[in-house]
């Protein structure tokens, strides 16, 4: 039998070239992440070298005397994001439950599209709305919060404070609104992955809609729901503009959530272009590095949890 003619030389070159180019660009995604990490570490090195581990636990922030510590912005970032999660998780659960189990078929698509639109609104708009509309309205209710919740023993101190309207709690509420679409859409997607057979068996023995969610759907989708919550947390931690408008930008830690605070992202947005000394600038970049590491860990965890359901799903089909 005759051998088929080999393709011309040029054509043989094109294939590896095409594959090589696409591969290089795919690896670039990985290189980019490593580069972000190294560049921030390099630029923040001056601050880490000057203050050592003390940087992480120091409350100092004194540009005039070149003394910096990360504790207050880290605290504010974590606390505002935790408030956001505490509010966003039950609300997202309700929305996902409504869309998957309660809404009539014609209403599902419009409602989930509208909730997802909330995620498309630029964060600076949330900031302006928060500062000029929500905060003045909310400050009218803060004396009530202070009077009623403030007298609860133990947690009361969290809610005793001045009715400024802006502060840690306001930032947390606005962050919650911003991350609800992310958490709700993941919950909705994974709820739909629950095998109908399981649900129908539960209904068959007389379970109510709520009991099916609690005892069948949630246990089945547990890890992915946790993944969605971590994804929302990752988003909240790095959110910049909305928080900068409403957190109050006060360099202090206080027990009360009604008091103004600070976050890493807000510190960067407010101070970076005005940082006059190299150590000041380096300290801010070091803050950015810490933010990057925290969100990286949270997001990796989120992805791993989400992958587990995907894998289980892949094996069963």
């Amino acid at each position, binding site marked *: 039998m005759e051998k088929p003619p080999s393709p011309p030389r040029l054509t043989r070159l094109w294939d590896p070239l095409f594959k090589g180019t696409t591969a290089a660009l795919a690896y670039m*995604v990985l290189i980019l992440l490593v580069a972000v990490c190294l560049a921030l570490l390099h630029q923040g090195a001056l601050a880490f070298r000057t203050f050592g581990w003390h940087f992480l636990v120091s409350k100092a922030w004194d540009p005039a005397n070149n003394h910096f510590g990360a504790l207050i912005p880290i605290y504010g970032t974590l606390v505002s994001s935790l408030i956001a999660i505490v509010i966003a998780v039950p609300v997202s659960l309700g*929305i996902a439950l409504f869309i998957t189990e309660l809404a009539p078929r014609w209403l599902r698509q419009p409602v989930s599209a509208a909730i997802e639109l909330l995620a498309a609104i630029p964060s600076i708009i949330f900031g302006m709305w928060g500062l000029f*509309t929500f905060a003045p309205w909310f400050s009218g209710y803060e004396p009530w919060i202070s009077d009623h919740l403030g007298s609860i023993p133990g947690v009361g101190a969290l809610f005793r404070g001045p009715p400024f309207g802006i502060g840690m709690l306001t930032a947390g509420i606005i962050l919650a609104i911003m991350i609800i679409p992310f958490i709700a859409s993941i919950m909705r997607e994974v709820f739909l992955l629950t095998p109908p057979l399981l649900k129908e068996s539960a209904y068959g023995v007389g379970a109510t809609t709520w009991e099916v969610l609690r005892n069948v759907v949630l246990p089945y989708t547990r890890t992915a729901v946790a993944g969605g919550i971590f994804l929302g947390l990752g988003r909240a931690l790095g959110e910049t503009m909305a928080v900068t408008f409403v957190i109050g930008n006060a360099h202090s830690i206080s027990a009360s959530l009604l008091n103004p605070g600070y976050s890493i992202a807000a510190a*960067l947005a407010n101070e970076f272009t005005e940082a006059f000394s190299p150590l000041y600038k380096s300290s801010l970049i070091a803050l950015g590095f810490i933010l990057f590491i925290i969100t990286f860990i949270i997001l990796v965890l989120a992805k791993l949890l989400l992958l587990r359901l995907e894998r289980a799903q892949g094996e069963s089909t």
Partner: protein
Amino acid sequence: MDLRYLRRRFTNVFNLGMAVATTVLGLFWLLWILYTTARFGYHNLNLALFTQDTPAPGAPGGLRNAFVGSLIMIGVAIAVGTPAGVLAGTYLAEFAGRRRIGEIVRFFNDILLSAPSIVVGLFVYSVVVSVTGNFSGLSGGLALAIVLLPVVVRTTDEMLRLVPSTMREAAMALGSPYWRVVVQITYRAARSGILTGVLLGVARISGETAPLLFTALNNQFWSTNLSKPMANVPVTIFQFALSPYQGWQHLAWAGALVATFAVLGLSIFSRFLIRQRNS
């Protein structure tokens, strides 16, 4: 027995009621925010917004330089981020498939997708602005490109994997080299899906403020020079909204209205494209 039944019924009705209430709450927030933007922005919408540059405090003016600067930087981001993202997505879908390296790149691409955009701004500051010594429109465009890239990688990968492999096999059976199969067959089949991904990404970067703060900075004046600081809508809104001058605050609201509805319009349009495709 009866009491327990009643309690179960009550819990069920109560929790389902809460589910309805939370959904209403979510929609209420959306409407409240849109209403606020529309109410404050509407009064300040006028032709001067698009024909005059950002004014000094107290003087009349518009946001022309900011709109143009934003468009230029979004253009740079599309020019850099789209080809890079489409090719990287091609590798994932066409060459890596289910192999380990593909899964690793997908994993970290999703991390990049959710990484804080202010960190991207700091990164571009560290590797471009601090090297060239000045803030520039180009570095702003690059920062936006890095935010856009993972969105494009992900949708390209997903859309290409939806193309039935029989189409590729048919083309290869005719003796076509693989690169031509990809460029002429699978890209064509996935074209509208990839375009949707790019549009969604553009909608996202159009409202991004944080990556521009330390890269493009801002510019009070008309400038189309990519190597100089460049005016842009989000940072201008940020500065004007927090300023004590009423004229500036009004401009900020007008800019916010235009930006919000442009971004929402773009994302509704791209969702509409997806649905057209699916039906």
